[in-house]
């Protein structure tokens, strides 16, 4: 008891960050990671509960007290291996998981004070492993002779590939873009998730034995049925919710108005922030509005600042309290000088003589009764229109299902929004041997939820292909 009291006195370690003034002009990672001393201090705060609640909050069931104990023992590489027993992408999850609403939310320490910084410790050990190059490959069982095709090399597909390879199955991942990683590569900016970290995690999966084939869009040319005809025993669809959503208001196709997908893909995947060293350009707006209050909005607005915006504003139709973005991301955005226009919604864009956006007519909103999402519904206030001067807009109000796979896969059921219908516990779809998980089932969610769904699907696929005899 006395021991516990002593431990609780160590405060939650604050992770050092790049100075907000400096980082507004570069794409280097903002949080710098714990030092070894900080990691040891933070690890010492863990109470090692007999029934750890934190683990039940983790969609991929990481042995949290187990790896933290190894950190305390300075066995960092072993700690990384412990995480990797259930999580193939720890360096990614340590950075982008919303720990505050998962493992850390359930941490016992959080009841009276601050929870253990589980995510930061995860990042510390994953980075330690990557930086030392001491990445060990677990023993792979003898080949089962079964082959699984994975469509989409995003968080779900990569997680599933790792799990199935470790069970001795042959796995081929088909990726539409020229680089694997999905949203980790095209969506999340360098300053939040460095691309060499993602590449190292993918490299680990390749070393485990997963085959990754880029430039392959399944559904155009090769279809899901073709994959079965080629001898794959099961197919996993982890294609994400890749289609952009626009508001369908007048002037939305003016030049200078981007979907978040396009804006971030240009900057992150195509490295437009390093134009002209890289060939792909992106507009460098001076007065930028980003629509929406999620993490993608924060990524977009912070990118715009780094690309030279004098004024970068989040325009959101509800209030700060309803914003789905992580607090940490909002906090970083505020520190960097992002402005917020809450209870505001665009109704029309105004263009100049060259067809480039120069203004955005908005209307003020107020909150009414709660809607289906439980959040209070925003209602326009009559005659409250006003104009915001802009020269670039990013529409980051969500994404939806890309219809190409359902349209070319007979018998694959979708719901009324076009998402694939799949069993929550197994990922089974209406087609035998076809499984699905991640955003293409749930709609836009988080990296870790897609990974959690993939873990369940991996178990179900393992059972299914073994049952094929």
């Amino acid at each position: 008891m006395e021991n516990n009291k002593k431990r609780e006195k160590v405060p939650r370690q604050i992770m050092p960050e790049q100075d907000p003034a400096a980082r507004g002009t570069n794409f280097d990672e903002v949080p710098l990671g714990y030092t070894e001393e900080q990691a040891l201090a933070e690890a010492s705060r863990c109470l090692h509960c007999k029934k750890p609640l934190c683990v039940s909050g983790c969609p991929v069931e990481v042995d949290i007290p187990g790896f933290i104990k190894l950190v305390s023992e300075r066995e960092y590489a072993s700690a990384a291996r412990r995480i990797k027993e259930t999580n193939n992408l720890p360096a990614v999850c340590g950075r982008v998981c919303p720990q505050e609403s998962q493992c850390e939310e359930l941490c016992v320490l959080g009841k009276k004070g601050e929870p253990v910084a589980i995510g930061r410790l995860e990042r510390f050990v994953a980075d330690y492993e990557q930086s030392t190059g001491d990445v060990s490959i677990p023993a792979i069982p003898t080949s089962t002779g079964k082959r699984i095709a994975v469509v989409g090399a995003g968080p779900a597909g990569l997680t599933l590939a790792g799990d199935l390879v470790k069970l001795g199955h042959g796995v081929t991942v088909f990726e539409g873009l020229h680089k694997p990683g999905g949203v980790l590569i095209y969506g999340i900016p360098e300053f939040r998730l460095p691309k060499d970290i993602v590449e190292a995690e993918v490299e680990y999966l390749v070393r485990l034995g997963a085959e990754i084939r880029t430039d392959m869009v399944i559904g155009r040319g090769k279809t899901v049925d073709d994959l079965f005809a080629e001898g794959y025993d099961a197919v996993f669809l982890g294609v994400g919710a890749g289609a952009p959503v626009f508001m369908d208001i007048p002037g939305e196709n003016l030049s200078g108005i981007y979907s978040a997908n396009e804006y971030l893909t240009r900057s992150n995947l195509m490295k437009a922030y390093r134009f002209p060293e890289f060939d792909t350009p992106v507009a460098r707006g001076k007065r930028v509005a980003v629509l929406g209050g999620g993490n993608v909005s924060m990524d977009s607005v912070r990118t715009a600042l780094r690309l030279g915006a004098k004024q970068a504003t989040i325009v959101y139709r509800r209030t700060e309290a309803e914003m789905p973005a992580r607090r940490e991301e909002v906090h970083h955005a505020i520190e960097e000088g992002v402005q917020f226009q809450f209870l505001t919604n665009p109704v029309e864009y105004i263009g100049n003589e060259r067809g480039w956006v120069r203004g955005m007519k908005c209307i003020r909103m107020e909150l009414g009764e709660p809607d289906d999402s439980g959040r209070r519904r925003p209602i326009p206030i009559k005659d409250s229109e006003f104009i915001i001067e802009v020269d670039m807009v990013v529409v980051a109000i969500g994404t939806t299902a890309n219809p190409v796979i359902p349209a070319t896969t007979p018998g694959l059921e979708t719901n009324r929004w076009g998402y694939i219908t799949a069993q929550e516990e197994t990922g089974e779809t209406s087609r035998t041997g076809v499984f699905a998980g991640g955003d293409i089932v749930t709609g836009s969610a988080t990296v870790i939820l897609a990974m959690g769904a993939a873990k369940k699907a991996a178990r179900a696929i393992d059972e299914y292909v073994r049952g094929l005899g």
Partner: protein
Amino acid sequence: MAAILEKKYLSSNVVEMVLEAPHIAATRRAGQFVVLMTDEKGERIPLTIVDSDTRKGTVTIIYQVVGKTTTCLADMNPGDRLYSLLGPLGRPTEIKNFGTAVCVGGGVGIGVVYPIARALKETGNRVISIIGARTRDILILEEAMSKTSDRLVVATDDGSYGVKGFVSQVLQDLIDSGEEINHVFAVGPVPMMRVICEVTRPHEIETVVSLNPIMVDATGMCGACRVSVGNATKLACVDGPEFDGHQVDFDLLTNRLRMYYREEKESMEDFRCRCDGK
């Protein structure tokens, strides 16, 4: 990565390349395109598949050297490998027996209209083709178009070859002569496609155009290639690239194609400097 197998200059700045791409060749149909990158720092550019050979596992592309990426591509040679090649993308052309179909191709657009003309011919259409270029030296694919058409009319802006004038005038004359035309395909520069649509509109002749907006992923993910067709927003990469020309907002297309005009110049200048420095 896909190897370049053959390279041939069709005119001073139009290049034909045969690429190794068995899985694209296997399923590709007329009207579809590929997206390629020359190198890791390159841009993704869409190019129509002009021809394919399933037996050899190859696809053919034709492009005009206009900017940095096409300049780099034209500098590559047989044996070199592209950094990335993705396809086939886009909806195939709707091919059926229309009766008499007119295929209009302008400039490098002739390369896009050629596979359509061939597919129409193979489906039993009477194919009349009208191809045009600014001047004789840059006219491409005359022989191939001739083989696949029941009748071929060539026009040059300066009159150096064939009829003097625009392809739109040739089409207008054809209509005025009482020729019964059931369907028109028009591919070329935006002003040409716009004028062709104005020629056919009063006669209510169905006119399909192939649009070439700026694309990034070209799989329906980003929305860069959005076009307005009949006042509805469509993505050229997955809903097109072919649309009913009478419904297309060509002003919007023109504006959006100019979006990176400054950057394209900058990229080219930067490239020239680096080349000169070599």
